[in-house]
């Protein structure tokens, strides 16, 4: 019966990883921007939720979603337009973007620390209690996390395949020049995808914060995980990231259970390196 526990734990983590990895891979696939501040955006989501909830206003998490999603969207858009986009005209701008976002991460993490203090912040649970089916116990909290991340992903897929913006995003990812020729405002799409990915990782931060708390330096862990997953799945491949997220979630749960938590990191990187050695483009990757 323990196995079922482990599988459930893997599925729940996998679902959140998927949400966050897809955001990272989307931006890389569309605009070749590798965002080192991705983990700090996760923390931003957590701190936003914390700040909004601390006013104890009507609606709880619903209000958080209503307020935080537009705020994250705006934040992502502004960051892209103001500091990432200007770098594109320089030579080897990809490295410069990495450096810039690394600086942004440092700045944001320490802003959090100064504003909110070094201590962890705890958030109220989304739903209380747990569901017991025979020997298996799953908290409603975990179920809510799973449902919300999976539906977030479906919503994202729907937007991507059924709207003009979604189509434009795919077009830019597949051929930026072609996209420009047909009249897609490429720069705006770059900024839009950056904004969408900010929302995705920020949502991840909101969902996980009441389980894992909010603290200023927590983002690095998230960044590395999302990064490993996107590379494993193939950078720029959304479907690849989805599968990879669940595989890595399971792997993490099983390795932790069978060999101990210290081995989790070795296992994740080991699997990644082995995959890249055989398939340099990742599971279903396109070349980037």
């Amino acid at each position, binding site marked *: 019966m323990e196995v079922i526990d482990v599988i459930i734990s893997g599925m729940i983590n996998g679902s959140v990883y998927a949400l966050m990895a897809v955001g990272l891979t989307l931006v890389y696939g569309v605009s070749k921007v590798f965002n080192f501040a991705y983990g700090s955006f996760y923390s931003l989501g957590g701190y936003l939720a914390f700040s909004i909830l601390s006013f104890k206003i009507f609606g709880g998490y619903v209000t958080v979603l209503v307020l935080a999603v537009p705020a994250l969207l705006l934040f992502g858009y502004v960051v892209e337009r103001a500091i990432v986009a200007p770098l594109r005209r320089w030579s080897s701008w990809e490295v410069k973007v990495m450096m810039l976002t690394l600086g942004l991460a440092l700045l944001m993490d320490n802003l959090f620390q100064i504003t909110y203090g070094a201590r962890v912040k705890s958030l109220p649970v989304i739903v209380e209690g747990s569901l017991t089916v025979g020997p298996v116990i799953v908290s409603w909290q975990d179920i809510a996390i799973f449902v919300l991340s999976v539906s977030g992903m479906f919503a994202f897929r729907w937007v991507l395949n059924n709207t*003009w913006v979604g*189509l*434009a995003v*795919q*077009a830019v990812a*597949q*051929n930026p*020049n*072609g*996209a*420009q*020729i*047909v*009249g*897609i*405002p*490429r720069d705006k799409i770059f900024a839009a995808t950056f904004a969408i990915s900010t929302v995705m990782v920020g949502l991840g931060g909101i969902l996980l914060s009441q389980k894992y708390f909010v603290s200023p330096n927590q983002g690095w862990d998230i960044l590395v995980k999302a990064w490993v997953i996107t590379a494993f799945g193939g950078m720029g491949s959304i479907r690849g990231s989805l599968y990879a997220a669940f595989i890595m979630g399971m792997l993490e749960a099983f390795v932790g259970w069978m060999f101990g938590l210290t081995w989790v990191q070795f296992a994740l990187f080991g699997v990644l390196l082995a995959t890249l050695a055989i398939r340099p483009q990742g599971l279903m990757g396109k070349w980037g």
Partner: protein
Amino acid sequence: MLKIEKLNAYYGEFHVLEDINMEVPRGQVVVLLGPNGHGKSTLLKSICGLVRSVKGNILYKGQNITGMSTSRLVSMGITYIAENRELFPFMTVQENLKLGAFSRAARPHLKENLDMVFTLFPRLAERKKQLASTMSGGEGRMLAIARGLMSNADLLAVDEPSLGLQPNLRLEVFRIIKEINKQGKTILVVEQNIPKIAEMADKIYVLEEGMITFEGDKEKVLSSEHMKEIFLGM
């Protein structure tokens, strides 16, 4: 329709175009000839907003459009058709065409334009669901042109449409360009050295080393010794 005055363009520190003056009258086919690497594509791209570091004036329907973004120009009716096609490889033919109608001006006409394109290119109608990356060179070229037509453009800027095609396909492409022109579109074509295209031109410009060295109709071109030398290798 389109008037260019004293246009200069730069690639980084390279001065690519020097004081270009040019005119494309409404409803005509204007051909721009010239050897490889002398700035023809740059001129076309400057008109379409794909090269932004330009000085001088580009007037479209009397309005100064110098330095405007491509997306804006597309919605104003100027569409570029690239020499290397620039399709969306992992999308179907139909999706590629749909994206051709991305501009707000073109979206309402999506259906009628699709019908128009499929009549013009029956081959594409057969392959609606095929991925663009799996198409042959000739089909890809057709798709690129068809996608350009989807934007409801008045002025089509076509960059070396015959590049890399077999002779019979080239003729097919030129026939279609003429056909499109007959439907009322103004066309500016860049070509390298094909006398065939010169035949259908209403007006011809020659660009060498970033400067217009010749301008006139096809008779004038075909009779010029200098032209024969560079383009026909005679």
